């Protein structure tokens, strides 16, 4: 990881007595022996121990850690569930019911996995909202942001294929509708859909490949998450002020300050998770998915899972098939170029008086899209979806590129430390409050 450059430095030192070994400072002899040959312990200490982190994070900065925890929960529950699940159209529904009834704690594992998907999206949506509000996607963190968008798309693909596995009515018809999106492509569309299905409709080959990919993609997510963290540790974290740390006073070591803050956040998060799993496990689901898949009968009203609704609304806002698909894809892909669309050098919306409100409107707009996505495709919902879709794109394509020409940002604080310490007192600072951090630093 980021330990690389430091190692290089140490290795090229001519005074180093063991040229090919890492100069480990680890005390325990066994751990040191390992660390000299493979400096993972030094790396962890550097990246998660002393790693200099802005001192002014608010609780929005907990959500990366929460996403990590959720990924671990999803993989752990997913692996044991896959030991009981049968990816066959004749067996899938019953095998899930067997998990719920006969497998020891099967209900717990399945409900944790199903609701974990929703929790994952809640966490990731807030994590992304944080980046948008505080300008974390801007230089030099463009690649970090883009890797995040890759993770988001991988998550959507994984969640979609996972939802197909129980082989209920929503599984089957969701799979049918979403795979049919590809048929909108000119010339090759039909061939691609047939290829995706492995047949002429969503059927056993489709279920089998979705199961395989649903198992594979989470490990791709793990890999990209690793890259996401590598990129993060090169640029360092953004912070609510959006200004870079200048001196050591502006940062604190990641451990113990943020390890304990993340730990506290994780416990609070698990309470919300537990309420969902133990007391309302089917609240976010759809009753139709407890009806076994029937290729002859489409449910009266197909809705995707709640986390797809905003994009589903964009799809339906366009009366043209190809147009809808292109716009829905565009709503996601536009995020990749976002760092170059926003022309303001100021990161945090705290210092952008106009952009802040336009962004909050965008947030509400996203919520409205989520709401119309669950409504039937009729007026006035179509009109609302069209207006919201227009604003969704206008924010990225018009507001962010041109607003900076007119907007006068508020004065940025001199440094993080100064801003934090001034804010804390709200007046003359108590002596103790300023003295101690100074000493520390």
């Amino acid at each position: 990881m980021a330990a690389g450059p430091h190692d290089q430095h140490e290795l090229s030192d001519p005074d180093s007595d063991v040229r090919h070994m890492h100069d480990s400072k680890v005390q325990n002899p066994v751990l040191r022996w390992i660390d000299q040959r493979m400096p993972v312990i030094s790396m962890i200490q550097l990246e998660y121990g002393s790693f200099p982190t802005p001192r002014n994070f608010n609780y929005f900065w907990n959500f990366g850690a929460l996403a990590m925890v959720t990924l671990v929960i999803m993989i752990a529950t997913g692996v044991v569930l896959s030991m009981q699940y049968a990816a066959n159209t004749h067996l899938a529904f019953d095998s899930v019911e067997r998990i719920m009834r006969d497998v020891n704690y099967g209900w717990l594992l399945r409900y944790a996995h199903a609701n974990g998907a929703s929790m994952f999206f809640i966490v990731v949506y807030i994590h992304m909202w944080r980046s948008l509000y505080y300008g974390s996607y801007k230089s030099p963190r463009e690649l970090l942001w883009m890797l995040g968008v890759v993770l988001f798309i991988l998550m959507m693909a994984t969640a979609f294929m996972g939802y197909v596995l129980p082989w209920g009515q929503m599984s089957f018809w969701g799979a049918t509708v979403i795979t049919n999106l590809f048929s909108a492509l000119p010339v090759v569309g039909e061939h691609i859909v047939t290829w995706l299905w492995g047949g002429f409709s969503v059927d056993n080959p489709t279920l089998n490949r979705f199961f395989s990919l649903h198992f594979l993609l989470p490990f791709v997510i793990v890999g990209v998450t690793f890259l996401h963290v590598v990129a993060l540790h090169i640029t360092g974290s953004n912070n609510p002020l959006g200004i870079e740390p200048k001196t050591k006073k502006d940062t604190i070591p990641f451990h113990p300050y943020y390890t304990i803050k993340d730990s506290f956040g994780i416990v609070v998060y698990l309470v919300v998770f537990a309420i969902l799993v133990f007391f309302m496990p089917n609240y976010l689901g759809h009753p139709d998915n407890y009806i076994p898949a029937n290729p002859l009968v489409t449910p009266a009203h197909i809705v995707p899972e709640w986390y797809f609704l905003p994009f589903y609304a964009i799809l339906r806002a366009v009366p043209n098939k190809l147009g809808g698909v292109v716009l829905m894809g565009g709503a996601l892909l536009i995020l990749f170029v976002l760092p170059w669309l926003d022309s303001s050098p100021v990161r945090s919306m705290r210092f952008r008086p106009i952009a802040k409100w336009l962004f909050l409107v965008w947030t509400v707009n996203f919520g409205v899209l989520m709401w119309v996505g669950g409504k039937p495709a009729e007026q006035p919902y179509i009109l609302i979806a069209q207006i919201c879709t227009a604003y969704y794109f206008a924010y990225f394509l018009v507001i962010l590129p041109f607003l900076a020409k007119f907007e006068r940002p508020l004065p940025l604080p001199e440094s993080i430390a100064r801003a934090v310490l001034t804010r804390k007192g709200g007046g003359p600072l108590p002596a103790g409050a300023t003295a101690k951090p100074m000493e520390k630093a």
Partner: protein
Amino acid sequence: MADVLANPPKTSPSEPGSRHADAVGAHPHGGHEEGPVRRDFLKLAAGSFTAVGVGVMAWPFIHSMNPSQDVLALASTDVELGPIAEGQAVTVMWRGKPVFVRRRTAQEIQEARAVPLGELRDPATDQSRVKPGKDQWLIVLGVCTHLGCVPLGQKPTDARGDYGGWFCPCHGSHYDTAGRIRRGPAPLNLAIPDYSFTSDTRIRVG
């Protein structure tokens, strides 16, 4: 951030933040003398709670891999004994394993009972391996006690080993006409499943 990158923090890896922070906590000017003690207690309590929580939550994952309720409730198997002639044997499935049902000849019973117990690796009388009054019927699990292969000897054309019972082709264990181990690497006699006679010509295994 450029500054931070240009001047990598001089905090050495051997000086993790925790020690750093403890030192500050113990600072006499901290204004609360019991600080470190209280924090240590809190940390200990929070740490042990976390450990217990993680331990307890591991159980559902582990237990989910134990036999499930439907597997535990698996049906018992009924065997009709009528069609089995003297000297013949049938194999039935029970819990995914073969069960050998053999109708022994008088001579085979005689042979099994003639063996002194002292000669046996896993001493058991022939009487203890059949139901009282049903000496002809030997019912054993068809799983070699060495490493789990299925021994030969059920079909008339099979090799029955040197003791006229069963012979395991994997590693050469010989069983006698009471299913007891006589030679080879297997340590124990062929196991006897739970079964009962539901009528004179019918047994229920399990």
